[in-house]
């Protein structure tokens, strides 16, 4: 108990802050912050597995998040029959061609010794393959994108409940990580960072521009929900009764019947959105707790000890007979898969998929700030980082506004400096993140809750 005092204190402060937002701003805002904090926590756990456990830099978090989001679309949207009949066969045939190409390349890699001729053969296979695939897929893609472009214009998904996409998102992201890991894991740390950053940009470019699969920048809206809809809730009896019970003390103060009814309606509308957010919170909390238990178990298992050994001294671990390359690949896939879950959760909560919104600042660098600030190598630290940084990211604007008003109190309201500063309040969050990161890196390089390994 004593040892964990700082963990408990840090989390209590965090929850206290969110509750304060609930009291002073509104419960709606507090809960939406809380939900995104939970999603951020899942992302930071993924990044923490890679960076904290194994010392691998992955700046491709954005790419895995987007793939998770794509999974949500592909799982939950109903299939577009017309599009399938228009161009489905071409797409499927192209898919077979891609598989054939990969198999051919693998065959050449195995069959021939490493030589110039082998490189040329592989290059020929790839170039010829790409050209044939383009010829096969182009008419199909055009046909698909012409099917009612204002509403669909893409193949749609499987029409399953969106919850399944959380697992599929993990599979997608893990699969991508496997390919990237095979290619890039041999690189030195900072090159791995650059390479993963660039690859994630390629992933986003593909998601943005392959309209037949993702609708691209036209966005997919109105995804299915695992939680009830507000409009439906507002008409169900048990929910109205629940709200009435909850707010009975306030409602009893109003004597006039019509006024009472109006107030009740207002409470029901507010309550419904809070209730929906609570449903999400519950779902997300379950994911976070399951992942936390698993990652904690892993951290203290022999496998976790081996990972730390590899992180701290690769050569020594190698000499002890540990397969460093294989373990690096494994942890790269695992961490990315967790980020993929978070990506699917995010799209589930928003109910829409907007490829244009994936930007490295928000989905890669911010997550890294969370991990570093919270404490890399410590799961509780990483989660706390996710909470604290996201909270600050959202509340930075009000805080910035307050600070601007405070410092420019002596100035006239129309003074150009004051007007300019108030206009630029949204950018204070970048400033706070940067300064926070720099301070933590300098004075507490292990993060708020540093890594503490006890041998049990």
């Amino acid at each position, binding site marked *: 108990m004593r040892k964990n005092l700082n963990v408990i204190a840090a989390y209590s402060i965090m929850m206290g802050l969110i509750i304060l937002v609930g009291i002073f701003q509104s419960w709606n805002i507090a809960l939406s912050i809380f939900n995104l904090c939970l999603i951020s926590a899942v992302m930071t756990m993924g990044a923490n597995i890679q960076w904290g456990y194994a010392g691998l830099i992955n700046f491709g978090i954005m790419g895995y998040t987007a793939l998770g989001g794509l999974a949500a679309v592909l799982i939950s949207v109903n299939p577009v029959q017309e599009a399938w009949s228009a161009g489905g066969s071409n797409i499927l045939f192209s898919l077979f061609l891609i598989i054939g190409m990969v198999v051919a390349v693998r065959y050449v890699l195995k069959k021939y010794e490493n030589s110039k001729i082998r*490189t040329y053969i592989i290059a020929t296979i790839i170039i010829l393959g790409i050209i044939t695939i383009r010829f096969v897929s182009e008419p199909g893609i055009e046909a698909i994108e012409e099917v009612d472009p204002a509403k669909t214009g893409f193949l749609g998904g499987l029409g399953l409940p969106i919850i399944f996409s959380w697992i599929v998102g993990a599979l997608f992201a893990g699969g991508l990580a496997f390919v990237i890991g095979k290619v890039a894991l041999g690189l030195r*740390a900072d090159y791995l*960072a650059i390479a993963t950053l660039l690859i994630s940009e390629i992933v986003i470019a593909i998601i*943005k*521009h392959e309209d037949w699969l993702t609708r691209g920048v036209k966005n997919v809206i109105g995804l299915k929900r695992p939680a009830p809809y507000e409009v439906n809730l507002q008409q169900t009896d048990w929910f109205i009764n629940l709200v009435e019970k909850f707010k009975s003390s306030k409602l009893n103060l109003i004597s006039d019947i019509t006024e009472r009814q109006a107030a009740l309606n207002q409470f029901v509308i507010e309550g419904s959105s809070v209730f929906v957010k609570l449903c999400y919170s519950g779902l997300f909390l379950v994911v976070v707790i399951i992942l936390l238990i698993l990652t904690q178990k892993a951290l203290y298992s022999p496998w976790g000890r081996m990972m730390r050994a590899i992180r701290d001294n690769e050569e020594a671990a190698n000499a002890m007979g540990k397969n460093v390359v294989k373990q690096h690949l494994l942890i790269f896939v695992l961490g990315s898969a967790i980020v993929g879950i978070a990506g699917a959760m995010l799209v589930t909560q928003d109910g829409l998929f907007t490829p244009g919104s994936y930007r490295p600042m928000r989905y890669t660098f911010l997550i890294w700030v969370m991990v570093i600030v919270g404490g890399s190598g410590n799961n509780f630290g990483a989660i706390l980082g996710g909470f604290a940084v996201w909270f600050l990211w959202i509340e930075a604007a009000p805080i910035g506004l307050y600070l601007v008003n405070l410092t420019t109190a002596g100035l006239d309201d129309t003074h150009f400096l004051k007007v300019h500063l108030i206009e630029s309040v949204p*950018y204070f969050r*970048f400033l706070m993140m*940067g300064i926070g990161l720099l301070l933590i890196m*300098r004075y507490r390089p292990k993060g708020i809750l540093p890594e503490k390994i006890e041998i049990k």
Partner: protein
Amino acid sequence: MDLVNAIILLLNYIFVPALAYGSQLALGAIFVTLIYGILRFANFATGDMMSFGTMFTILFTWYFQSLGISLGVLPTALLAIPFAIIFMIGYMLLIDKFVFKYYRVNKSPPVQLAMVSIGVMFVTQAVVRIIIGPSDRRFFDGEKFIIKAGEFKEMTGLNEGLAIKSTQVLTIIVTMALVSALFWFLNKTKTGKSMRAYSDNEDLALLSGIDPKKIVMITWIIAGILATIGGALYGLDKSFKPFTYFNNMLPIFAAAIVGGIGNPFGAFLGGYVIAFSEILLTYAYRKFFMYVLPETMEPDGLVQLLSTDYKFAVSFSILVIVLLYRPSGIFKGKIL
């Protein structure tokens, strides 16, 4: 005649724009490579440092414009660049003193320095957006074209016009001058040689009496000059928007690595490799083939290898291929 038309077409749409874009990337890539070679970390704040320098150029341009000073046909920004460079160098040295120095003295691993540069990136981005705002800004004035497409057509009687923007010529001339001066400095002067020695082998350089503080300071000064001029030229040619500059960091990194990181000449050529491959692979060659091929063989489609949406993806794919097959870059930089 058709052949001449075809060549003019390629010059107009591929060669001239790629040369200008490549020069802008090259300056950035040399900036990245110098920091990497001498200070030994991947600087993720590259794009934002460039936008910081450009911001000062714009502010000075506005100031000069308000005073009524102009360079006639040339953009006023040229006059503003030297002043902007002074501010930029000040900013760089300030960052170094308060942020990077601590980690350098403690001999922190490069990864930690890269993380710190992310902090600098956040702060710089915030400062730029707070001072000048996130919107798109054009600060070009003076004569826009050296040759207009219409005039060219009249002059030569060809079907295809060749338009050369003055900013494109300006970019190429300034880049060539700056890069030659830089290579002269690195190869012929004593300070330049000691910088290269320091980059090659730090311990040996220290043993032979090279002052690391001076080397670091000069590196930041050169970096400040490169970042400001590179950023300002890009802004003159296209436009200034903080977010675009942040994104430009990616092809710049690609150029530096393709050229062999730590090798300034490689970075210089890498910029052109990236620019040309981006534009060559995404250009629609339909019109070109219409001129070259006989009428019966004219192509139906656009004859475009990749859609222009994948412009960035091209440079990154090149990077990935280079990393796989020649990890030290095309022109032999440091071994990764």
